[in-house]
């Protein structure tokens, strides 16, 4: 059993670390496909990458229900750490979550299990934080849409079915899912406006 004293630390400097992490996430969201770095240093519990941990400390609080997949919640460490540092409630129904942290993209639930928002309030949707093995290897995708000057190329070790599901975001707009891919301290965002096509097609 992990006691509070043994929990990994949060940000050493809460204010400025949260600010620099947010700017990385904002730049990633504003420029889909671009790889941004998270410089802030924080402890991370077991299955959480340090980028994920920094995003959690920056954006999660008592207003944001969080859903964890089996890979991340295999031990109670992550839930305990989140509760201690962010006060975010951990929920079991992904459709009620503001954020979902996913450690195993192979076995994640289909995207329509998460909150897509409504036509009136498309902002009430889940932001997925997906931990991937690499952002420089794996299947490649060509991205177009707002934030991208022409086209951008995304490479990530995600199952192809995920890219297909993300392509379906187009039919839901303005409802939809926003995704942040995390590998270690590198992040790439795919907001719902981004259109995906197989690279070279």
């Amino acid at each position: 059993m992990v006691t509070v004293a043994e929990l990994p630390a949060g940000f050493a400097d809460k204010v400025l670390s949260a600010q620099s992490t947010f700017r990385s996430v904002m730049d990633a969201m504003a420029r889909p496909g671009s790889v941004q770095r998270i410089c802030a240093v924080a402890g991370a519990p077991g299955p959480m990458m340090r980028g994920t941990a920094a995003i959690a400390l920056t954006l999660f609080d008592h207003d944001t229900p969080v859903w964890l997949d089996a890979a991340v919640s295999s031990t109670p460490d992550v839930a305990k750490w989140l509760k201690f540092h962010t006060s975010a409630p951990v929920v079991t129904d992904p459709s009620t979550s503001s954020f979902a942290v996913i450690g195993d993209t192979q076995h994640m639930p289909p995207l329509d299990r998460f909150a897509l928002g409504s036509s009136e309030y498309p902002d009430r949707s889940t932001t997925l934080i997906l931990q991937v093995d690499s952002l420089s290897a794996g299947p490649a995708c060509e991205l177009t849409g707002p934030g991208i000057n022409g086209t951008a190329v995304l490479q990530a070790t995600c199952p192809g079915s995920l890219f297909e599901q993300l392509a379906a975001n187009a039919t839901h707009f303005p409802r939809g899912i926003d995704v942040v891919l995390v590998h270690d301290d590198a992040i790439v965002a795919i907001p719902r406006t981004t259109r995906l096509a197989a690279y070279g097609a």
Partner: protein
Amino acid sequence: MNASAYNFAYLDEQTKRMIRRAILKAIAIPGYQVPFASREMPMPYGWGTGGVQVTAAILGPDDVLKVIDQGSDDTTNAISIRKFFAKTAGVATTTSTEDATVIQTRHRIPEAPLHAGQVLVYQVPIPEPLRFLEPRETETRRMHALGEYGLMHVKLYEDIARFGHIATSYAYPVKVNARYVMDPSPTPKFDNPKMDDCPALQLFGAGREKRIYAIPPHTTVVSLDFEDHPFTRYRFDAPCALCGADDTYLDEIVRDDQGSRMFVCSDTDYCEGRQAAGHRGTESAAPHKERAHG
């Protein structure tokens, strides 16, 4: 005031998290107005409380802040907001468009082209473009949900029926990413084309109305119009009296009670830059005369 008694950039961290989440959703849904829990700020509504909250949520110690009020760096509103952040966040401030990383603006887009890595933060009084046509929030929300913007075209058509042309000259409605009709805040319509495919991120904050919205970089922004009445920019047909520029947005300055007036660039930084580069207008004092007055 003991500035160090405040958190960095004035707002508390929970408020910043809430605003930051709203900004991320706003970027993900270009042109959609995200509701947020706007806070009371140490300045009255109408002085840019929405823009100030957005700026406070994104600002970091390495940022260089520029604040303009109708293109001018030197007016009360611009100076007080610049001082507010210099005091509460200790950030560097500038009047140079080129050097700024965050530019907060009350209604103008600088004449100098913006570049990637810059964020333009607009202060917005009325974020809802349909509000004067339909006062009920429930109805305007449904109109946005359905993409039902016929009413806005009727309004522009009524301009044509009454005046012979689209007489709307500021807060001219735009369509963002071919989906949401958006109020670009009361910028003169002269500035509308600068929003399209802009390399900088554009964020909009409305404090009293509690809405945040955004245009990501390189996003299509189209001013609404008709095939037979296409959108046109408007500017006074005169060169700037100080720098001679003939492609900038001009302020009209009344000089006496005899009706004489002059036109000068609204963007003071751009105008000063041109004068420093040797451009002269009809009303420029010769350099030696200025020194004599010194």
